[in-house]
């Protein structure tokens, strides 16, 4: 790798947007307050100043409108990168995404495609108002025809965003907002892409596999590091990165080695991503499993108002407990 620069995730996403606008004139950025306000999280900083109002578009306040017109624009040949201000409000765009972005290619036997990205901050941990903290990636991942990815830090955010923008299909790009400015990481000077549909084994281990993604990945990492320091255990840690398509092969390979699995995510448990991971491990590595797979996830309630959101969220202690229970099973 040539040079690198240290930056936080907000900056890394902003960098990817600058780079994408620079290298491909078909890329446009659109959404509520993405122009002169530079986004409520300042992710679109400097874009309208540099690329003008034609390519960095402050839209009316209407999520179906944003995604529906983005579909039209993508069919025309553009590559819209849309910001939904908070993932919670993407509910309003569900029909456009499910009925159209997910289907145009299939129903026209490959003739029409919709290369667009729906970027959205998600998840809890920043003491935000109600309807500003949910993690409902499973809702989108259940839609055949969409791709759903979620980075866990600056480098994966920038790389996955480039992958998403270059992808010829509609990609839902989750931004775990609690990570925006949580930490910095080295990001290569050269534009990098991560293949959509591939997980990363971040750390090898022998006794247990832990799979996570997004902000929960940081929690899982924290737990794993503490456990390996304090206890005599060796844990393999996988960053899912791509939620759909999901790379169960990497997970199953790991479980074949460790025999045990804990999945950590912030979204509700019932029909959450962990359920599908368990189902695939059951299908592909059943005989390797030596203990039930543990789910450390959000509970099946709406995210509590922020005074008690920390109790809803997975934390390192919850993860550590689950890991030890699974190892000792």
């Amino acid at each position, binding site marked *: 790798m040539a040079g690198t620069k240290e930056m936080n995730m907000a900056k890394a996403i902003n960098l990817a947007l600058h780079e994408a606008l620079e290298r491909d004139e078909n890329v446009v950025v659109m959404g509520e307050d993405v122009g002169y306000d530079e986004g409520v999280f300042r992710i679109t900083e400097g874009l309208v100043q540099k690329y003008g109002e034609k390519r960095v578009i402050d839209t009316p306040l209407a999520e179906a409108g944003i995604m529906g*017109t983005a579909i*039209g624009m993508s069919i025309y040949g553009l590559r819209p990168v849309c910001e939904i201000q908070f993932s919670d409000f993407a509910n309003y765009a569900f029909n456009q995404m499910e009925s159209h972005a997910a289907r145009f290619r299939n129903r026209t036997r490959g003739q029409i495609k919709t290369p667009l990205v729906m970027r959205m901050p998600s998840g809890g941990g920043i003491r935000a108002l109600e309807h500003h903290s949910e993690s409902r990636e499973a809702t989108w991942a259940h839609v055949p025809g969409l791709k759903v990815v979620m980075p866990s830090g600056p480098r994966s955010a920038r790389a996955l965003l480039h992958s998403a923008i270059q992808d010829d299909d509609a990609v839902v790009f989750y931004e775990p907002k609690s990570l925006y400015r949580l930490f910095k990481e080295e990001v290569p000077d050269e534009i990098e892409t991560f293949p959509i549909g591939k997980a990363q084994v971040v750390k090898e281990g022998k006794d247990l596999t832990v799979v996570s993604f997004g902000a929960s990945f940081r929690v899982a990492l924290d737990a794993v590091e503490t456990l390996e320091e304090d206890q005599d255990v060796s844990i393999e840690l996988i960053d899912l990165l791509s939620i759909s*398509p999901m790379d169960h092969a990497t997970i199953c390979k790991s479980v074949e080695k460790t025999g045990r699995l804990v999945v950590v995510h912030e979204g509700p448990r019932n029909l959450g991503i962990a359920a599908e991971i368990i189902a695939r491990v059951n299908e592909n590595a059943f005989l390797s499993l030596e203990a039930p797979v543990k789910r450390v996830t959000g509970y099946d309630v709406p995210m509590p108002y922020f005074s008690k959101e920390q109790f809803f969220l997975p934390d390192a202690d919850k993860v550590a407990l689950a890991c030890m229970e699974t190892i000792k099973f």
Partner: protein
Amino acid sequence: MPRKPIEITEKIEYLSILDENANVDAKLEPKLDNATLKKMYRFMLLGRRTDERMLKMQRTGRLGTFPQASGHEAVSIGSVSAIEKTDWHIPAYRELAGMLYRGWSLEKIILYWNGYEEGAVPPEGVNDLPYCVPVASQLLHAAGVGMAMNIKGDKKVALTYFGDGSSSEGDFHEALNFASVFKAPVVFVCQNNQYAISVPLSKQMNCKTLAQRAVAYGMPGIKVDGNDVLAMYVATKEAVDRAKAGGGPTLVEGLTYRFTPHTTADDPKRYRSEDESKEWFGKEPLTRFAKYLQNKGVVTAKELEEMEAEVDAEIRAGIERSETLSKSEELMNPLAMFDYLYGEETEHLKAQKEELKQYLEHKKKGKKQQNHTAHAAGSAK
């Protein structure tokens, strides 16, 4: 500190040129050459006859349920003939005539309503989207296409359609608003057939005209006799020209009537009176246009008859092609369901495709075995 009326500056108009008795308002009559006029009529006729033939096919089990389009030919053809091939045509599902005009083959149309994705693949040489089922959602695509034209600096227009009932959906509102804010070159044509399946327009909205909804978006609105193909043409052409000149979108309401049930699954007697239907049959769009063409000397009665025969042959040929195609290996291949979802093959779908493939092979073996057994049993008798 006054109390005063706010003046509405949006222009909302009504237009009719060719009445039900084929009287024409010469001042308003568009200057269309004979070839164009003939082409317009021909596609109205092709649309009508195809619709009728498809109904027969449906009744005899050769076609799936479909939304019939008889009565909607003038709205569709009057508007579609006002755009160029390179413009965009974004239909709902009653634009049969217009789609044929744009080059959608009869076999595609039939394949679509017979449950083949191949019927949704747009023809080459035009910029068309396929039928759209979730009502009003296509209007946002049209707005987006129009926005893209502005971004790219292309002087084109997007022509899109929706029903009267569909104007109740939020997507209608968002689409007209986006188009208007971004001065997108879009013409929104309402097929106002006065019913959403069974619900009459008076229960769908509380305003006198659909056209006046344009006031909410600061755009011009025009209500047109939707059985008058000339008026539809004029209204659309003005809107198209304005859009291409940077004047933004227009809402065109074509008042018409469904001469048929909503779809082949529907029974309109439940909600429409025979009197009402009869009255509207009298306002039928083809008859008056045929008369106009004859009066004008564009076609003779004999030519009209010949056209009927031509159209009939064309439809027969189309049906035949569709039935051949639907028996082709390619179109019968169930494994194709996995092939077009994403730009590349994913491991996950590859595995499911394999799963279905093996199952089908297993079934085939099973059948062969059964046939074999049956055969053996038969010969044993």
